[in-house]
């Protein structure tokens, strides 16, 4: 009898071959007790899935996310037969650039530093705007989970804005790290496949009154940022996205 219970369990997982599955189905059809057993197993599964799903909502160790982001890893495998002179030449070039003095270099990066977390967001957007398969980590079908999990991890509650009136379909979300803090990134796609993202990060300051929208262009993307309700927000889209201002205003109302 216990063997049948094990069969039922495998049947639930779609792991029985056709013949065995048919035998199980035949018995289910005329044995109410077998059906009750199956119902109980399914009920157990429902509780298991509920618990497993709740475990996903626990905040991840943020220090670890930050550590992953800042760890330097090589972008290319070391060439097996790299000539020694090549390495030497590369070294010399680095020395030469270093030797030109820090001022010029510092001058060059200043605009990015003033952008703060937006510069990090721009880097991410450059990566994800070209991703189709891995656009999001958690899909739109799990919107509740996205709101709970990302809200808990970022430390700022939010609702996923509905931007369909701009032709933008919500795809899902993921956790990013910018300016050493967790960021919730919500991804939308328009009909042409252009990616528009709404990112938010907890903020220490929270200005009163209506939000002030600030427009910027970083690395070929348009940014419209604002602060409200203890969080900083930004909507990012391609530079030719015409209605991005209106998108940001709608998002600010709904988020």
């Amino acid at each position, binding site marked *: *009898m*216990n063997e*049948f*219970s*094990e069969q039922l*369990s*495998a049947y639930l*997982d779609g*792991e029985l071959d056709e013949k065995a599955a048919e035998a199980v189905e035949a018995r289910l059809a005329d044995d109410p*007790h077998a059906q*009750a*057993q199956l119902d*109980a*197993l399914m*009920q*157990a*599964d429902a*509780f*298991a*899935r*509920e*618990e*497993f*799903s*709740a*475990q*996903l*909502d*626990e905040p*991840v*160790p943020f220090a*670890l*996310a930050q*550590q*992953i*982001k800042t*760890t330097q*890893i*090589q*972008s290319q*495998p070391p060439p097996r037969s790299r000539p020694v002179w090549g390495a030497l030449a590369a070294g010399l070039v680095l020395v030469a650039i270093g030797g030109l003095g820090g001022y010029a270099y510092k001058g060059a990066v200043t605009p990015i530093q003033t952008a703060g977390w937006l510069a990090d967001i721009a*880097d*991410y957007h450059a*990566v*994800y705007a070209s*991703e189709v398969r*891995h656009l999001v*980590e958690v899909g739109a079908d799990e919107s509740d989970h996205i709101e709970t*999990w990302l809200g808990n991890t970022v430390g700022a509650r939010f609702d996923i804005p509905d931007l369909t009136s701009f032709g933008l379909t919500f795809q899902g979300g*993921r*956790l*990013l*790290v910018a300016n050493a803090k967790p960021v919730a990134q919500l991804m939308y796609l328009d009909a042409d496949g252009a990616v528009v993202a709404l990112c938010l990060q907890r903020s220490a300051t929270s200005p009163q009154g209506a939000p002030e929208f600030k427009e910027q262009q970083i690395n070929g993307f348009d940014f419209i940022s604002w602060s409200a309700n203890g969080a900083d927000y930004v909507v990012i889209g391609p530079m030719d996205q015409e209605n991005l201002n209106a998108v940001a205003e709608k998002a600010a109302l709904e988020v």
Partner: protein
Amino acid sequence: MTPDQFKNQMIGLLPRLRRFALSLTRSGPDADDLLQDACTAALAKWQQYDPSQPFDRWMFRVLRNLWMSELRKRKVRQGEGQVDAHDSAELRAPGDQDDQMTARQVRQKVADLESDLSQPMLLVCAEGYSYREAADLLGVPIGTVMSRIHRARKQLVSSLSSEVVGQT
């Protein structure tokens, strides 16, 4: 895949990695330590990752291998091995609880499943692994995956009602 893409995928995967680490270690602090070690190890050997394979499966394997090696170390240190799932599971008589437990209590039973039962249950029911894939990752025969998932379900069923249990 660029290093940044690799790192971003890893960050996005952290909740699911931590959940799997929990099913392996059955302890929050151990799970966090394991997660940390696995991410460090994966970053160090990221070039071994074949982008044509699913990233999550690769990371799960890294995590699982590290945990097995940690268990071996503990065994040497303490002179004891992994606790067998049978030990506590079989001690629980089906009849010794109230007819119905609350949903919260049943969920707690999921969290309390022995590691040997919790791993295949998580992989198959929540992560969508087939028995074959779970068997590969866990290094056990398919039949073992099948019977452990069954045992896990039976333990949970036994907490739902005493009616169905015992008649099987």
